[in-house]
């Protein structure tokens, strides 16, 4: 019972929190891919989550890829060794980084020692997540148009001494040059806190 995923009235456990945050990333990344037009909109389907209608991809390869990331994130969140998740959107032709979504993760490491679950209702966390996802959707109103076909990359910032697992490789930060940044809302499960922000190219044409 102590190992339960903290879903119902049990409060939030470390594992439960890791699951919640990894799940949020999965839906968040899907939303970004849909809203920014990285993949055709007809390849997305609507699902109900967090009391919202969200769009997730139906492309099996992409789903597989994202699942790999989500599973890995769950593990690393549980171990509290991941600091940041970044979605980099770059032009396929020029390889220029056009947009960069950065999710900073603050982990309360004392949760590893605690045995009791933390007090925070599922609903409160869901409300917070819902606000962030809605904000991500609304960013299309001010983000510059992505003129060319784009590809995305997922970067994860981990602790330095982590053994790099198979299929993962080291990378540079892939910043946007000459960027404008907007900070979005954050949410917290009391164990993990996620801050979201998006960097995009400053308009060169006034």
């Amino acid at each position: 019972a102590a190992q339960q995923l903290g879903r119902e009235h049990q409060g939030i456990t470390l594992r439960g929190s890791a699951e919640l945050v990894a799940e949020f990333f999965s839906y968040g990344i899907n939303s970004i891919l849909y809203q920014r037009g990285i993949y055709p909109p007809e390849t997305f389907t609507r699902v109900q989550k967090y009391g919202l209608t969200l769009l997730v991809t139906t492309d099996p390869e992409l789903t597989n890829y994202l699942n790999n990331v989500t599973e890995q994130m769950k593990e690393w969140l549980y171990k509290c060794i991941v600091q940041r998740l970044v979605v980099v959107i770059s032009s396929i032709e020029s390889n220029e980084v056009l947009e960069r979504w950065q999710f900073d993760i603050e982990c309360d490491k004392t949760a590893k020692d605690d045995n009791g679950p933390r007090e925070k209702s599922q609903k409160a966390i869901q409300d917070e997540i819902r606000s962030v996802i809605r904000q991500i959707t609304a960013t299309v109103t001010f983000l510059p148009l992505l003129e060319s076909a784009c590809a995305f990359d997922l970067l994860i910032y981990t602790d330095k001494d982590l053994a790099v697992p198979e299929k993962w490789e080291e990378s540079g930060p892939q910043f946007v040059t000459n960027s404008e940044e907007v900070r979005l809302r954050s949410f917290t499960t009391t164990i993990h806190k996620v801050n979201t922000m998006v960097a995009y190219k400053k308009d060169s044409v006034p």
Partner: protein
Amino acid sequence: MAQFLFEADLHGLLKLDTPIPNAPPARWQRKAKESGPGPSPVGMSPMKPANRSHSSSKTPSKTPGKSGSKIQNTPTKAGGDRYIPNRSTMQMEMANFLLTKENDPAEESPTKKEQQKAWAVNLNGFDVEEAKILRLSGKPQNAPEGYQNNLKVLYSQKMTPGSSRKNSRYIPSMPDRILDAPEIRNDYYLNLIDWSSQNFLAVALDNSVYLWNHASGEIIQLLQMEYPDVYISSVSWIKEGNYLAVGTSSAEVQLWDIQQQKRLRNMTSHCARVGSLSWNSYILSSGARTGHIHHHDVRVAEHHVATLAGHTQEVCGLKWSLDGRYLASGGNDNLVNVWPCTQGGGGDFAPVQTFTQHQGAVKAVAWCPWQMNVLATGGGTSDRHIRIWNVCSGACLSTVDAHSQVCSILWSTNYKEFISGHGFAQNQLVLWKYPTMTKVAELQGHTARILNLTMSPDGTTVASAAADETLRLWRCFEMDPIKKKEKEKANSAKSSIIHQSIR
């Protein structure tokens, strides 16, 4: 681990065959690009520093920027047994610094160390000593060839070519009239125009309300806010057309008598601006920026008779159904709520339906006049879809992508059609056939986004107010004179059996 990076960097720095920056790509580079991104090697070990030629076609080449690395594109396949450095993931500045650091005295004051650390964190976005960045290889193929980024297609929408279908009626492409609307507030969330059953068009221009008599063309200034910086956020005519409800940015709901041009009531119950109003006989409903909807009984002193809390952000769309049974509300929280006219058992109002499908603010809310329980809603910039619902079953009957922000929807009483108003990029009005959801016509003319639509009492003309400070009147639902006579006959002599058979 670190020494391999160092070695690799050293190798890279000593190589002479680095390509010239900013030169036209060499033939082999062009060839490599043409051959396309090769299949990404899944499961490749990241630890081998000597062969970094992974599918680098995906790694971006950066101009000198925050991390200051100098990058050149490296080919994927060419020169298989040469060590070709992958510069995009190298950090030249960092490497250079680390190299030169060896020569400096190792002694550094603690504050200097702190300072350097702060700089490193700032430049790199993370503490180099503490974290490393990982990337998952084996990224799936991108969208297929020929897929243009949807956003580009969206924003380069050309006018739809003249439909091959023969339109059964002539819809003039130019407005009947254009009226000046100076100082109209360019705020998507407000509802600044309404047309009364007595044929007066009320327009709120910043802090004043003007009435335009459609028949005579006369203009009257009805009111002006007393306090500076207060503006009008919504206007709504009572069904009979003798009273006008006005919502303000100071959270007041005022009631004005038109004949006497006097204010009858000033109802305060909200704590934020009132952006939407809707009448149901003597009940006036108002939606505020807090997300609350209040019902006011305008006949009694204690006007605030009910509160509906269903939105967490501004209520921008509010409409009672024509039979007065339901109230539909749309908010900036992307929700559509359908409320019953009577309270539930517990004395609380709860929505009978909540629709979450829209991905943007819902300001366009309209009830179908010829089919019961059918509601049309339209989403803002992030959504751009028009949806038709059956509020009893909760089913979404149709959806159509309008490719542009939807600010308002009006159903026609003369034809089985509805009209929608849009923003970027064409600022057009679109007429749709219902239920086939095909476009009947597009009316262009506005040079900035449309903010509101309202319909004349005879149902023939639609007025649109836009951010270009004009009001345009479009005669798009003109009745055919023959059909008009038929309709009038049908309306006047409903009980006659002979007339029914003619119809």
